């Protein structure tokens, strides 16, 4: 059997993606709007009388068929951002500012009832530790058939068949579809969770640390699977992880978060080979690379800041080797460069484009992809 070379990633047009969907778009969708656009999102958690400013002004966009990686360490707000997109925040969490536009529809303004239309059908999520989120007393295929049956109004038999198809697509053989969760290994359960996220044919799937508790070989399998699904189904992915190296292999663009804000964002190659923000540089440098001779690793001294009373100005300043007086006083503005990178750092006060702040999507995505 001869091998065919894998074609380079062609930019998929909105029509291509949306044409592949089985279920119709939401009624209010704007066919010309970008898939997802997040502007200045602020999500805070109530703690007693104060607010923990977990996500404090995050903006980014996602184009059709794109894979965006969100990276950062613990407590940087990446999971909170994801939960804000699907509005599944814990009881004391609240979106206090900004907008999340899906096909041009602002989800933040929607009531919980209205949000249910979009949740899982347009945007779904594979949660952290998802493999423990399966109901132990219900067979796996029934758990996946459930949203298909009730959300998409499909008869039970058809829903079950689709569930079995989905499981097969994620690599669980048909004859194991009627297994109970405890009969499956960790990797298989993670695949089942991915199938469940795909149940209603969403446009966007968010994976929150999808491979973190898995063995490295299973991790490679799952990432490979996500890659394949993205190609075959025209999915758009948001992958959230603290492990930058996972993003290097699967994403088109990477967003690096620190303490609730965006530090840097751009095409994956630029972020890894020419990081601008001091935090990104250190973060990239703290991953050991088996494939090179480099054995020395970067150290970031200090601790992430307290998000109850964050430091004024740039939140990374206390740990930054390049901190200047202005850094502790003024929040660094976001600046965009012609190679598609967006940075928020006083070391880069001006860009080589005239745009400052605002949305990232103006014509950037196609350009990014051809530059990769």
């Amino acid at each position, binding site marked *: *059997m001869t091998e065919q070379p894998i074609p380079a990633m062609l930019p998929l047009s909105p029509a291509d993606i949306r044409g592949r969907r089985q279920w119709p778009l939401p009624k209010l969708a704007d066919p010309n709007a970008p898939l997802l656009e997040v502007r200045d999102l602020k999500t805070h958690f109530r703690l007693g009388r104060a607010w923990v400013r977990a996500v404090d002004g995050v903006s980014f966009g996602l184009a059709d068929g794109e894979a965006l990686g969100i990276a950062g360490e613990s407590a940087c707000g990446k999971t909170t951002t994801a939960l804000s997109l699907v509005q599944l925040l814990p009881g004391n969490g609240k979106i206090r500012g900004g907008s999340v536009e899906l096909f041009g529809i602002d989800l933040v303004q929607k009531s919980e009832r209205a949000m249910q239309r979009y949740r899982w059908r347009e945007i779904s999520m594979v949660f952290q530790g998802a493999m423990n989120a399966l109901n132990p007393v219900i067979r796996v295929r029934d758990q996946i058939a459930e949203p298909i049956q009730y959300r998409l109004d499909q008869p039970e038999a058809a829903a079950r068949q689709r569930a079995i198809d989905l499981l097969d697509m994620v690599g669980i053989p048909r004859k194991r579809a009627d297994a109970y969760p405890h009969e499956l290994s960790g990797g298989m359960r993670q695949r089942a969770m991915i199938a469940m996220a795909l149940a209603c044919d969403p446009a966007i799937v968010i994976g929150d640390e999808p491979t973190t508790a898995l063995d490295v070989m299973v991790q490679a399998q799952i990432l490979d699977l996500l890659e394949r699904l993205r190609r075959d189904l025209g999915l758009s992915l948001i992958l959230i992880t603290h492990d930058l190296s996972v993003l290097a*292999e699967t994403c088109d663009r990477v967003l690096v978060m620190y303490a609730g804000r965006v530090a840097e964002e751009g095409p994956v190659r630029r972020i890894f080979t020419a990081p601008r923000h001091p935090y990104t540089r250190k*973060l990239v440098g703290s*991953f050991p690379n*088996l494939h*090179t001779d480099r054995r020395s690793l970067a150290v970031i001294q200090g601790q992430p800041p307290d998000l109850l009373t964050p430091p004024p100005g740039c939140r990374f300043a206390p740990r930054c080797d390049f901190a200047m007086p202005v850094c502790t006083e003024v929040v660094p503005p976001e600046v965009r460069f012609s190679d598609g990178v967006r940075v928020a750092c006083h070391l880069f006060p001006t860009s080589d484009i005239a745009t400052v702040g605002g949305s990232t999507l103006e014509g950037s995505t196609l350009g990014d992809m051809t530059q990769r």
Partner: protein
Amino acid sequence: MSELLRVSGLQVHFPIRRALGDVVRGRAASAVRAVDGIDLSIQEGEVLALVGESGSGKTTTGRVIVKLTRQTAGRVTFDGQDVTDLWGTRRLRAYRRRVQLIFQDPYETLDPKQTIHDFVAEPLEVNHIGRSAAEREVMIASALEAAGLRPAATYASRHPHELSGGQRQRVVIAGALAVGPELVVADEPVSMLDVSIRTELLRLMLDLRKERHLTYLFITHDLSIAWVIADRIAVMYLGKIMEIGPANRVISVPRHPYTAALVSVAPSPEPPAPGERAKRTILVGETPDASAIPAGCRFNTRCPLVFDRCRVEEPPLIDLGDGQSAACWLAEQATSTGGIADMLPNARRPLGLASPAAQRLASQAAL
């Protein structure tokens, strides 16, 4: 450098209770063969990394060495003395002073009700180390400071929930150092920590090795971390060692297909070049259950280079020179610059093949 620890023919089998139906039907009792015959030799002052995925037996091996788990067969020799059957009190205590364990989860290793001071004091009290309370205080403070928690007094009175993950792990390290061990078994000591903190902790462990003449058995599933810290690497699969050798040899010239596959899927913070997907050998399926180990070479069910002999005869660890050994019938032939990795098909799969079985067939046919 003399040999500090030697393990020969170590086996740890956990018997599985048979259901009554099985007893009646005369089915033989089976066991989970967590460790199924390994030999290890750790030299004084070295860092030996024991690498493997879940189910490989690496953690069980570590637990047997620190005598938390009993071995089913095999011998353990420490500093020339046989310590295999040390389960009576007095000599076991002396052994515990010389061999300690750093646990994986800094959030679980510390008793939430104990102060940091009591945590570090406990090994001293239990082993009657230190001639007076004052002397013990000095030892506690010095252990905390050696682990990077300065000033010791501020940390000593705290409870675990007041500390961050990295700080807790330092406390765990201090607790292990307090008795003055020679061999430290570290079971995934940094896996649960943020990446930037890992570096500090790894550096700390290497510094302590120099200062206190420690020897480490470093257990990890992450080959990249082993690469950073280890002098020698041993790769385990389903209870046996597949390959062992100097770290840079094992990684750059692997002689066992499993090692080569692990190396190829180790994540690297370098995006693949445009138009080329990373050459990864992604094994199909998952590690078989340790109660049903395949016949012949236990890796044969997933090996991309499997042939007839593999399914029948289990290869021993074949010495390949330069301190490297591998348990593979093809190891001796894999002498090219890339080792056995050069013989592997890469991960490029034709489009349209959905099922893993078909992928496997494709990669086999390409061989």
